[in-house]
């Protein structure tokens, strides 16, 4: 009897440990699973009600933070000048830039209305270390090409850039930040990002 219990618990424990040893998901699988979970949350009828909204929104934010790597976003939008940032400035910039992105885009989630995402393909680059997962976003009977650029970090694929109709979010911000950093020091850039993040937040409030 004891042996049976021992065997049973062994099986149960090994099953529990299985996911850790399972083959890691590919970039595309990660993106697809993430998109599915997020769209699933947004399709929940409770999201449209004032009571259910905050909880679902918090869950969506958590999923977004899992899928998108804001550290990579920050490093890459600053570019080579990142090395001149002090550790404190790096942290400040990351917080300010994450706020800017959140304040700019989070409210667009409210407009979600059953639009569909279709994954169309993937291209790998950087010796297979980088993968671009391509998809089509269908809204208002129009098709918008969207792509996630992903890299593997701590055994997990994360998104480090988003392209919409060929416009890279990271490159777009990097061009702007380069323009600013050519004339100003890092602290000034951080301050301006903070101001812009605040501006976006207030603007969204005014519209409501």
């Amino acid at each position, binding site marked *: 009897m004891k042996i049976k219990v021992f065997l049973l618990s062994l099986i149960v424990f090994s099953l529990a440990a299985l996911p850790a040893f399972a083959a890691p998901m590919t970039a595309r699988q990660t993106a697809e699973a993430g998109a599915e979970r997020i769209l699933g949350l947004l399709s929940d009828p409770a999201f449209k009600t004032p009571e259910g909204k905050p909880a679902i929104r918090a869950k969506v934010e958590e999923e977004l933070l899992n899928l998108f790597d804001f550290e990579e976003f920050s490093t*890459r939008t600053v570019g080579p000048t990142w090395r001149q940032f002090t550790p404190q400035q790096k942290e400040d910039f990351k917080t300010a830039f994450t706020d800017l992105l959140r304040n700019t885009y989070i409210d667009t989630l409210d407009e979600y209305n059953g639009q569909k995402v279709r994954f169309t393909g993937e291209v790998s680059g950087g010796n297979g270390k980088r993968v671009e997962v391509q998809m089509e976003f269908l809204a208002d009977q129009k098709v918008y090409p969207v792509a996630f650029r992903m890299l593997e970090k701590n055994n997990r694929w994360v998104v480090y850039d988003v392209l919409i*109709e060929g416009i*890279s979010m990271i490159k*777009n911000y990097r061009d702007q930040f380069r323009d600013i950093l050519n004339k100003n020091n890092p602290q000034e850039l951080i301050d301006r990002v903070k101001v812009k993040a605040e501006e976006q937040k207030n603007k969204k409030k005014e519209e409501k």
Partner: protein
Amino acid sequence: MQRLFFAALLALALACGTACSAHKDAAASAEGELSAPAAQVASAAPVDDGEDYGGLDDYDDFNEEDAALQNDPLEGWNRFWFHVNDWFLQYVVKPLHKGYAFIVPEKIRSGISNFAHNVAFPVRMANSLLQGEFAQAGVEFDRSLVNFMVSLGFADVASQSRPLYAYHPETENFDYTLGVWGVPDGPYFIIPFLGPSTVRGAVGETGDGFMKPQNYALDWEVSLAASTFFSFNNADSLYKAYDQITESALEPYVALRNAYLSMRRHQMLNMTLSSTAQDKVPEVEEQ
């Protein structure tokens, strides 16, 4: 949304074909004056020293492609007109269009938009012929014929059937034709009151103006007024996309330049050879 933006831009551009010759002169003079910013841009171009700064690599960072998005020798001219156009869009076009959209329902506006597209078919057909895309020219003719017969051009019934042959209206302009002929894209260039383009794009729009039958059939005032109205009719898609790009930006000028040039590259409008032209002469690619 951005595609609409640039479709609307092209339409706007068509509207002022006649005015473009003046812009070209301006471009030439601006080119002479503005060599200093060009040097600045060149020195600002990042150098990839191979050092690791937090996961940056060659996949998308600091390659020549990236630098091409900052090539802006006409920056002084462009920045000036960016501010004028921005003011014009926010304080003239936007309020006017909001009033217009309030009075005229969406269905009618979309009908007018279809009509404007169908009326411009000779321009697209002529360009397809000039590019050697005879099948595309045939498709263009057939679609317009169907649309005019069924609805006098106020509907796009042709788009409701599954196409037998791919339809690419976005490449049927003189800008793209020049590209097929091997004319380089030239630097970023903002056309006054019309918006972002490149030097070749501006020349292309002038060329398209010469292909419009209404410019010959009607008095120029009537023709210009009609074209301006057609462009105004679509202005909502233009300013919505414009706002999306510039509102979240710290440097709206740079954000729009990057977005426009990336978009152009994505649609392959910047290509000197069209992809189909390359298919026809594979040996050129191998050399």
